């Protein structure tokens, strides 16, 4: 298994894994061990912020897996991300217990507020972490399985597929806005207290979550890389470049697509589950189609079909977003819009792809 994950390692991949391992150790150390007066101290808010970037990076890797390697431009990956986040949020809500405003040991505050008497069956067992963790993976995967099975079987491709993935997340957005759904309506889930027994606010929990996000990003990257460098990955690239030809060669194109779509959705769900405890809230706006499209631009900026690039793109774009919305908020949308236009026009392979071309390496997308 381990050997499978580390097959065909090259310099970029090794560097990326080492860098992740380094920050997974160093950021918590500089946050917890180094004294607050020191110039090297990393404040708590930065740990949470960078943890958020890393969970976005995992989403970007998941998206790159389907878009960069299989040509499926999903404009609805935010839906899988948000579903994973909601599963984690439900666990965190159940952990609040009697400490809520209405001090109801079973029902979360918003249900007491809506005058509900019993826990809806969708919320059963979410007080167990193992069950919640299972749902984080299972719910997005199942949705991807059902949706993908219908879509790929009837050969919905290209922009049509993009549009219906967008409709999917839009429909979920509307659904989660409804109070009757039992997921907190437009306020979503928030005001979390504990995660597996540790206070969610404490710096050590934050640091642990950060390190965990880095580890999961590394794992996600390894799984995605193992997939795309295998024989399976070569078929994926063939589907991306000439779907019909691959089909005529005897490959069951829809099975390949479905598998990679489900894996990618599960990764996006895990990213969402890591995102929620660090941000402290999950609400239906995470389903907004604009969010999913923004995730696509992270991949495009970093370089589609490179995996490393997707992660780097997610961190870079979100860093720029934090910085720009802080200094000149109205400029951010100009900047983001310009990014979409300029990257597609002048940097079709993204930063990593352009660098690789410049320094004579073959992009990993081409390697397959």
């Amino acid at each position, binding site marked *: 298994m381990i050997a499978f994950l580390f097959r065909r390692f090259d310099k970029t991949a090794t560097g990326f894994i080492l860098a992740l391992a380094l920050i997974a150790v160093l950021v918590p150390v500089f946050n917890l061990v180094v004294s607050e007066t020191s110039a090297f101290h990393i404040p708590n808010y930065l740990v949470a912020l960078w943890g958020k970037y890393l969970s976005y990076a995992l989403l970007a890797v998941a998206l790159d897996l389907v878009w960069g390697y299989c040509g499926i431009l999903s404009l609805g990956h935010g839906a899988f991300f948000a579903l994973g986040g909601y599963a984690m949020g439900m666990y965190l809500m159940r952990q609040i217990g009697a400490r809520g405003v209405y001090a109801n040991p079973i029902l979360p505050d918003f249900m007491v507020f809506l005058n509900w008497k019993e826990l809806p069956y969708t919320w059963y067992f979410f007080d167990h972490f193992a069950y919640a963790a299972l749902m984080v993976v299972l719910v997005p995967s199942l949705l991807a399985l059902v949706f993908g099975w219908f879509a790929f079987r009837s050969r919905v491709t290209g922009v049509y597929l993009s549009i219906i993935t967008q409709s*999917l997340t839009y*429909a979920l957005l509307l659904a989660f806005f409804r109070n009757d759904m039992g997921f907190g309506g437009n306020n979503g889930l928030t005001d979390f207290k504990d995660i597996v027994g540790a206070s969610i606010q404490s710096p050590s929990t934050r640091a642990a979550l950060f390190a965990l996000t880095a580890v999961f990003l590394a794992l996600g990257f390894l799984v995605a890389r193992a997939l795309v460098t295998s024989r399976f990955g070569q078929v994926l690239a063939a589907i991306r470049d000439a779907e019909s030809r691959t089909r005529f060669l005897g490959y069951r194109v829809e099975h390949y697509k479905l598998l990679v779509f489900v894996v990618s959705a599960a990764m996006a769900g895990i990213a969402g589950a890591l995102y929620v405890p660090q941000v402290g809230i999950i609400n239906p706006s995470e389903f907004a189609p604009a969010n999913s499209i923004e995730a696509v631009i992270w991949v495009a900026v970093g370089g589609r079909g490179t995996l490393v690039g997707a992660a780097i793109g997610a961190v870079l774009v979100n860093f720029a977003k934090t910085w720009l919305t802080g200094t000149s908020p109205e400029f951010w949308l100009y900047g983001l*819009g*310009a990014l979409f236009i300029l990257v597609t026009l002048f940097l079709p392979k993204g930063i990593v792809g352009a660098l690789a071309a410049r320094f004579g390496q073959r992009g990993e997308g081409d390697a397959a």
Partner: protein
Amino acid sequence: MMRAILLILGLLSCSLLSPLPVRADDSAALLSRLATDNYGDIESGITALASSGLAGSEIILNALADGRLSYRPSDKALFIKDASGAWMEAATNATPASVPMGLKPVKVNNRVRRALEAALGSMTLMSPDPLKRIAAADAVFKSRDANTLAALDAVISKEADATVKRHFEDARAAVLMLKSDAPEADRVAAANTLGARGDQDSLALLSSVTEANAPANVVASASLAAKGIERRLALLSTAQNAWYGLSLGSVLLLAAIGLAITFGVMGIINMAHGEMVMLGAYTTFVVQEFIRAKAPSLFDWSLPIAIPLAFCVSGLVGLLIERLIIRHLYGRPLETLLATWGVSLVLQQAVRSIFGANNREVGAPSYMTGVWDLGGFQITYGRLWIIVFSLAVFLALLVVMKGTSLGLRMRAVIQNRRMAAAMGIRTPVIDALTFALGSGVAGIAGVALSQIDNVSPNLGQSYIIDSFLVVVFGGVGNLWGTLLGALSLGLANKFLEPLAGAVLGKIVLLAIIILFIQRRPRGLFALKGRAVES
């Protein structure tokens, strides 16, 4: 002839309305019954005063209703305070020589107030103004006060105006329907009258008749009449839903038709299409501001002026986008999608910077306001014009596509781009013109949408997903498909709404479309071709 009829009518109404002569000492006794603090006496006094026909009794009762009536306990004389605060003697309408001293207000409680309302109601039943008589009848219909029955019977027999008479009879039926001591035959007749009236109020009234308060055959006829009304109302609401659906469909048609053209010809999704619509709406806003400032009399012309301008503004922006961005991305539809999304963000932010983030007020010209009532079926002129307008735009585009040389070339490119190029059609020019045309049509849609939606930088966003669905549902490169797609989505939306609620209806619709695309991946009207990848 006319004059003779008027004369007869005048005489009739004189004989009907002239109060019975009341002797002076009677009137003083009548008025003094109100000069007390016993509510029971005041109540009976009001009823007596109302049926006396005494001149000025309406003024007194109105003063009582407004709390402007007082009395002097020493001689039981009534005084009315007018709006300026001056006192007037109620019996003579004269201003008293000196300001009256020691006055006490005539007090009102709920029972007195009811009696007062009934009394005023029955008095206005005799008003010379037919509109006032109708209003009085409707008030009785709502209050169902049994005390007014005698007054109603009296006026019904003398009423000459058929409309007013019908209102009187409805009111009388409403009173009789729930009057348990009324003759059975009268109550059955009342049920039929109410059934013929056929509105929501009558239905509520009829369904409140039960075994507990009426004999069996009255209940039977009431429930029969109620069923008739329910059928009628259901029919009406279906028609109304169909109308709303048609209206929504026409809006979707306007928003989607430009998209359908560019998608059909160029095979690309223009995510900035919604922003073209928004630019059209803002053009309307600017035109209206200009007209308001320079020539307010031309305000009704603001929309006809805005339409060509919006077409030009959005068309030019579309042309720029095509020349600067899209033409570099041909053959890469997914990248085009991302780049145009970037354009849409920039355009939104630009409009937000220029016009502010708040909604802008776009006024409706006089012919766009008002309602046309067809027996309970309401048609607003604004919606009517938008339906007409969108059909006109559709027909105009149909003519362009089928009747002009540009349309011929466009259709050639839709069918087979490479073959068209081989036949000497300059496809880049066609692409640029198509994109400009599609964007211009979106601008026109913006003019119409500015009349029914908030003009804000987010206007386009709210239509873009629906427009995509229309195009995908209807199939590309086929205007009829777009028409059918838009109308069926609009109708389905409005018919699902009452069944499942607005939000759930929309979700169900999205799910249906997602499933539909599985069945027909190329839409309702797919172009037939033999290519493996189309």
